[in-house]
């Protein structure tokens, strides 16, 4: 299990996906969600996965995050193949290396903002204090609010704080602004950007909104389960400068 991080001096890829295929077997029909993905992610970069709905973005992200396994192919995280890892190994991988942010926040409704973060830091190896994580996303004054007492944008920022509080190596965000209006969405993106820059967390962000792609180091375009092309942003924009 890739538990011990390698020395940073090594010119490493954090992720390397080779010929990843994912087929959902629905009985009568087979859905080819991923049809052979090759992909690399490097430390500290912010990558946007862009593509229309149904193109396989979430499927790919879930596989990278160890939530799901590919039907075939390899997914190397720091040289370890997640496609062949056991449930237990995947659990430990998620516990110690990955932070997730989802479109619908998915906070635990019966826990306050602070407790939602604590639920994760309690099992992490080297976490921040929940209060610090929440301060980082600008919610220092909402510690003891329950999700139902927070706006959508605030809930999503709690979700980001929860994702980064364990100091993960990678932050995976699946349409984090999908359920938000653009002004609120930008505040959320700013939080992600800040985490990426201040903590150096490798970040993969899914969106079907091309405008958001402008804040990425690299943009990976997906369509119909394949990577159609990859572009590098020579001048990446700050989240603050985005609008849609």
């Amino acid at each position, binding site marked *: 299990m890739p538990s011990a991080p390698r020395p940073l001096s090594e010119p490493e890829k954090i992720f390397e996906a080779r010929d990843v295929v994912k087929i959902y077997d629905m009985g009568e029909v087979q859905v080819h969600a991923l049809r052979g993905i090759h992909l690399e992610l490097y430390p500290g970069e912010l990558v946007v996965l862009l593509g229309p709905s149904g193109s396989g973005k979430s*499927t790919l992200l*879930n596989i990278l*995050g160890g*939530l*799901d396994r590919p039907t075939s192919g390899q997914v190397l995280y720091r040289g370890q193949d997640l496609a062949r890892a056991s*449930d*237990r190994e995947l*659990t*430990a*991988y*998620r*516990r*110690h290396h*990955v*932070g*997730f942010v*989802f479109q*619908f926040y*998915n*906070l*635990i*409704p*019966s*826990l306050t903002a602070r*407790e*939602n973060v*604590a*639920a*994760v830091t*309690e*099992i*992490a190896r080297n976490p921040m204090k929940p209060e610090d994580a929440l301060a980082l996303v600008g919610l220092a004054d909402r510690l003891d609010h329950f999700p139902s007492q927070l706006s959508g944008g605030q809930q999503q920022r709690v979700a980001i704080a*929860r994702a980064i509080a*364990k100091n993960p190596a990678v932050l995976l965000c699946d349409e984090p602004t999908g359920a938000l209006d653009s002004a609120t969405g930008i505040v959320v993106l700013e939080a992600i950007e800040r985490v990426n820059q201040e903590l150096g967390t490798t970040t993969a962000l899914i969106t079907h909104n091309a405008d958001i792609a402008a804040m990425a180091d690299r943009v990976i375009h997906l369509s119909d389960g394949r990577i159609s092309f990859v572009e590098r942003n020579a001048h990446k924009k700050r989240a603050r400068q985005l609008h849609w």
Partner: protein
Amino acid sequence: MRALDRKLVRDLWSIKGQVLAIGLVIAGGVATFIMSVSVLDSLRVTQSVFYRDYRFADVFASLKRAPESLKAQIQAIPGVQHVETRVFAPVLLEVPGYPDPVSGQICSLPDHGEPLLNRVYLRQGRLTEPYRDDEVLVSEAFAEAHRLKPGDELGATIRGKKKRLRIVGVALSPEFIYQLQPGAVIPDFESYGILWMGRAALAAAFEMEGAFNTVALSLTADAREGEVIDRLEDILKRYGSLGAHGRKDQISHRYLSEEMRQLQKMATMFPIIFVGVASFLLNVVIGRLMATEREQVAILKAFGYGNGDIVAHYLKFVLLIVLIGVAGGIAAGVWLGQGLGRIYMDFYRFPFLLYQLRPAAVVTSVLVTVAAAFLATLYSILRAASLPPAQAMQPAAPARYRASLLEALGFGRRLAPPTKMILRSISRRPVKAFLTMIGVAFACAILIVGRFFSDATDYIVDIQFKLAKRDDLNVTFIEPTSERVLYSLRSLEGVRHVEPYRWVPVRLRHEHRSYRTAIRGVPEESTLYRLLDQDLRPVAIPEHGFLLTDYLAHLLGVRPGDTLTIEVLEGRRRTLEAPIVGLVSEWVGVTGYARLDSLNRLLGDGRTVSGAYLEIDPRLGRAIYAKLNQMPRVAGVSVREKGLRNFYETLAKQMLTFAFFNTLLACSIAFGVVYNSARIAFSERNRDLATLRVLGFTRAEIAYILLGEMALLVVAGIPAGFFIGHWLCAQMITGLQTDLFRVPLVIEPSSYSFAALVVLVSGVLSGLVIKRKLDRLDLVAVLKTKE
């Protein structure tokens, strides 16, 4: 995992109604278990301590009269440790200020030193002084019934001689824990008492100087009881032996043992039902919870919680619900146990009750409920926990509905859409609907079981004491007496009718089976003591042959037409052969019956009687008792009506407590089942219902859709409950059928309707609680939240 524990507590709180409902059912089961087991243990321990410390004998025998010198011979029987010879004398008592007849038995106490066996526990006052012929101890129950205390005086007639007795102490004895007048069914502490008197004084009064009529033995550890009894009977044969027996046939001991068996049944049957219902409820509630927590489980897993953590989290949730119930149940069980213990102490006169709550009983109740709860919920928890997180993140597929059976059969068009929704909802989850109905049925069944014992008792009393026995007074004579005594009875003013009977102790044999009982000789035209057959029709006694209680025939394996060997244990001790000519249906005791004149002829005794039933003018009752008291041959007088009244009074107290507790338990089940099912249906369907409201359905209409389903299941559960209740009652009484009494499987229509009513009321109450939630349905909020 502190944050998760907070989630757990808050989630519990958010479904507190359901937690409470399930907790109550669990508490009911645990309480019944702890109550009956603790009382059972208490009775056992108290019994064995009392038996040991007060030297309860192992073997008992009674006889007509034997010289004291026989004691050495008895002592010489191998295996005998101690021998205590005693004099037991019937006595007629006059209690100051109490007009009705009172009879009793005086037992002798040695003049020097304590008895070797069957010692008395002195509650008040002191022991009798040697050779004082006016001092007695009275049993505590008798003293309490008449508020007697040391220093009070009693009038007594022993063998027709009047005496004044002074009470010097109040006592209890291991021999008379259950005090029953011979021939009675239930203790009547007002009209029958046990007294103790110095041996010399009692022997003098009862004409038993230098002799004894009762003997008790204790055995050595290696003794064989059966052999000792045979040897003892052999020795006593020539002295008018009335038979010897071990503890298991000692009346007080037997009743106590039967009571414990009954408790044992209660300790298993009720808790099983409750735990079963609670498991079902937990299964439903946790199943629903896991469905709503799908996403939360997924998110926890996404952040690195393992399957084990998730399973542990939800099992903790279940554990907490169970422990809330168990804690309440144990507390209630101890409280009820002590209460039941006190009720038992009214009937079973121990000097003390050593209340026992064995840790093992508590541990068992915890382990069994926890195990059952885990079993009931583990599947849905495991399934939710093992769902791959990516999949769990997706909303569950919409519930699959199909046309219900009624619609498939073509009734569809006639049904209004809301009714169709009800039927489809039931047919979508037939197992759940069925179990809900069964849960309701068990609530109903428990109520029926609760009422059953008083129904059965009423029935016994009606048959045995109203239809069969119709005398006003029962007069017993000290020993079989010439028929001439009847003239003096008939000549008493106010006596309308006198019917003699003869009572002979016998041993009945058929092939290898034998049974010790009595044969009762009754006149051909018996109107005060009627023998009834199964259909409650009077049975005529033919001139030759015997009738047997049906249960006795069953015990001996005989049928009408078979021939029995009858060993008479009295007088000339003849052995006779006689045919069984018919069966008598009786619920209390077992006896053989014969025509009085034929019996006397067979015995070669001439015209003798042992007692007589009297029909009297009630206005002259007092005067008649007073006259009877002065007749030298009269050993006891009992009033039927009074016996009945006391029977009901003592029983009513017990029944009332039991019925109340029982109703409470059944309500907890009915409420738990109905409330939980409706609550879950509500949470599953509040979106649909809110949509319907938005579309213009009224509150009443959506309430009908949701609660109509519950109502249907409740109504279906009631007749099912009748069947289950009947079946449970049948289970309760198997094994309780003994020669002491049989419990008839009689359930009154009123009990069925009571059960149905209670179930309906708790159904309506839980419906109202849900109705309030429905009325407060926030249309906009419900439609906004995503499921």
